């Protein structure tokens, strides 16, 4: 183990880095001034001069008025819940919390076992579906075309990851298989899907499939889209896993064989844990990108966060305040994605500790 470096005086370090020469000092001060100005302007606009309540919207038109958060006050339920019926918003809230809870719990190492993880996800998704759809537990039925806003984004995202991860692993294993048929099928599928834009894939699932398939084979639009999206994710993720496999030296397999372990034992106990570790940074990247890409479903007529935000300012009363609306949803995206990123950092640290 390497000894920790001696603690350095932070002030000294800063001085050495930013104020070493007069030229450095000038540049540093200019940058600091610019940053201060930027932060002050944003603070002044967003907080000090801002108008907060929907009733005060008239004040937004006055000279010197800052951000008009009235639009959020008046329209936040549209942004967060899309077209979900107004009186049933508590269901959408609980459903979103169920998904967030499921994701948070499955991030805790104690849950990392199939016997805990699988029931957790089944319960989480069942709770979401039963609450959102409603008719199975005696609430008013809300059809999937009315699902929207943040709850829909969270549902799409977690379903795509949940379906796509095992599919991706399966495809990666198929591509490494000794059987030529499996290998060929996997490579063809991966290359084909990766050569199409996500938008085309989703548009095909949402719009073209109903024209080609008989009614009983179609299923609801939301499921078709989730399956197509998951397939798209899986094909990319398969390549990420393949990279992870290639990083593992052949000696690992051979040592496993020498210990008398079977093929699947070697895979499950020796290879895969290392594959996951190698693939982790790229996987977190994929997950973050997927969260943001859910916004593409706006094109096939889903009322996701972006669509409901544009509907929120898409009326004569609120059209001037699109900036505030975008800032609001940018904050929501930032909150979720930075949490994902933070968790990724934690995982990497944890795995590094395990290695030593």
């Amino acid at each position: 183990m390497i000894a920790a470096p001696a603690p350095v005086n932070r002030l000294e370090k800063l001085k050495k880095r930013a104020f070493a020469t007069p030229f450095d000092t000038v540049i540093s001060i200019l940058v600091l001034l610019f940053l201060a100005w930027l932060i002050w302007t944003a603070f002044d606009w967003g907080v000090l001069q801002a108008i907060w309540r929907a009733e005060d919207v008239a004040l937004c038109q006055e000279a010197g008025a800052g951000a008009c958060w009235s639009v959020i006050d008046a329209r936040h339920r549209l942004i967060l819940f899309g077209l979900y019926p107004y009186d049933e918003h508590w269901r959408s809230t609980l459903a979103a919390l169920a998904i967030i809870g499921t994701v948070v719990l499955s991030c805790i190492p104690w849950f990392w076992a199939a016997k805990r993880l699988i029931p957790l996800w089944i319960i989480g998704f069942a709770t979401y579906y039963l609450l959102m759809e409603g008719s199975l537990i005696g609430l008013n039925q809300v059809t999937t075309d009315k699902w929207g806003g943040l709850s829909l984004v969270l549902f799409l995202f977690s379903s795509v990851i949940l379906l796509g991860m095992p599919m991706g692993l399966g495809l990666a294993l198929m591509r490494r298989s000794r059987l030529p048929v499996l290998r060929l099928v996997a490579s063809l599928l991966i290359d084909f899907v990766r050569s199409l834009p996500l938008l085309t894939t989703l548009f095909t699932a949402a719009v073209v499939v109903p024209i080609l398939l008989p009614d009983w084979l179609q299923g609801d639009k939301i499921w078709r889209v989730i399956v197509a999206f998951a397939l798209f994710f899986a094909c990319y993720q398969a390549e990420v896993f393949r990279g992870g496999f290639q990083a593992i030296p052949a000696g690992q397999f051979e040592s496993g064989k020498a210990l008398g372990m079977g093929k699947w034992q070697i895979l499950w106990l020796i290879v895969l844990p290392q594959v996951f570790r190698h693939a982790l940074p790229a996987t977190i990247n994929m997950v973050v990108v997927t969260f943001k890409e859910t916004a593409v479903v706006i094109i096939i007529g889903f009322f996701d966060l972006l669509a409901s935000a544009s509907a929120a300012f898409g009326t004569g009363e609120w059209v001037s305040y699109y900036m505030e609306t975008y800032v609001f949803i940018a904050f929501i995206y930032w909150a979720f994605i930075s949490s994902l990123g933070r968790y990724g950092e934690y995982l990497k640290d944890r795995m590094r500790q395990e290695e030593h």
Partner: protein
Amino acid sequence: MSFIKGWAASAVIAAGLATASTSAHAESATLKTVQDRGTLLCSGHNGSYFGFVEVNDKNEWKGFDIDLCRALTVAILGDPDKNQIVPLSWAQRFPALQSGDVDVVIKATGWTMGRDTELGLQFSLPYFFGGAQLLVRKELGIETADGLEGGVVCVQAGTTIERIVADHLKTIAIEHEMVSFEKTAEVIAAYTSGRCDAYAAWGPSLAVIRATQIEGADEHMILQDKLSSEPISAAMRQGDEGWVDIVNWMLAALIKAEELGVTSENVEAMTANPPNPTVARLLGVDEGMGSRLGLRDTWAREMIATMGNMGEIYHRNLGEGSPYKLPRGLNNLWSEGGVIYAPILD
């Protein structure tokens, strides 16, 4: 998307054969589907389209096109809420119609030859005329584009508006200068800073810009001239004549009601005491309005009582009762100087 065309063509042939084999007064397969389902499927939008398709604070659809869908729902099912508004993007609306995801597309859709023929659609009579219009300062004191002699007109670059305005002003022999900008915000800035005398754009959009993006909106006005005209109609699948009849007469009844002075306010009084035979027929006092279409005789009365007539729907969503205050112009009744008319109600 030739396979869609192929599909549409075969559907048209199939539907054509089906129609030929039934009786002369067309029975609508779509109507039957809607009645069996108990819900009408209409087109919504993925976001909102000013004045036509929007969402209110209670997460409910509203707007001119939405009100027409609700009126159609009352006509068929007797309750404006028995519909499902399916959110669709612009590109999705026709495939969704062909695949049966919606029963009708009422979504600011222009009646074009390509859509009518190649896409296998059928259009209703136009219920709205949109077109290029001009926004000017009231202080110019002009009423029509004739007053723009020697003026500067600003437009957004790369749209059809540019050519339409040039054509129109050339036709009426008005000397002018045209300045085009890349972005909407730039055109607005040029107009408000006084660089241009007039701002040309699609009428309904211009009304939104005037109402919301320009300070002192009351000092500006949209000229009545329509420099181009785009008839906006409801789109349906080809081959269901009976369904087209229903949508057409739904629109016709709303227009006729306005023409005859029947409003949501006075519809009950008019029913109790119809001033003339046409009103009596429209409101189902005399029999016959419904059975010809396969609906109830009182469908138009119920529709007007719930949704109002065409004028009321316009007023509420686009006119003085809305934030847009779009002058009716061409969208007035023929008797008021517009081009909106209904076929004869006999």
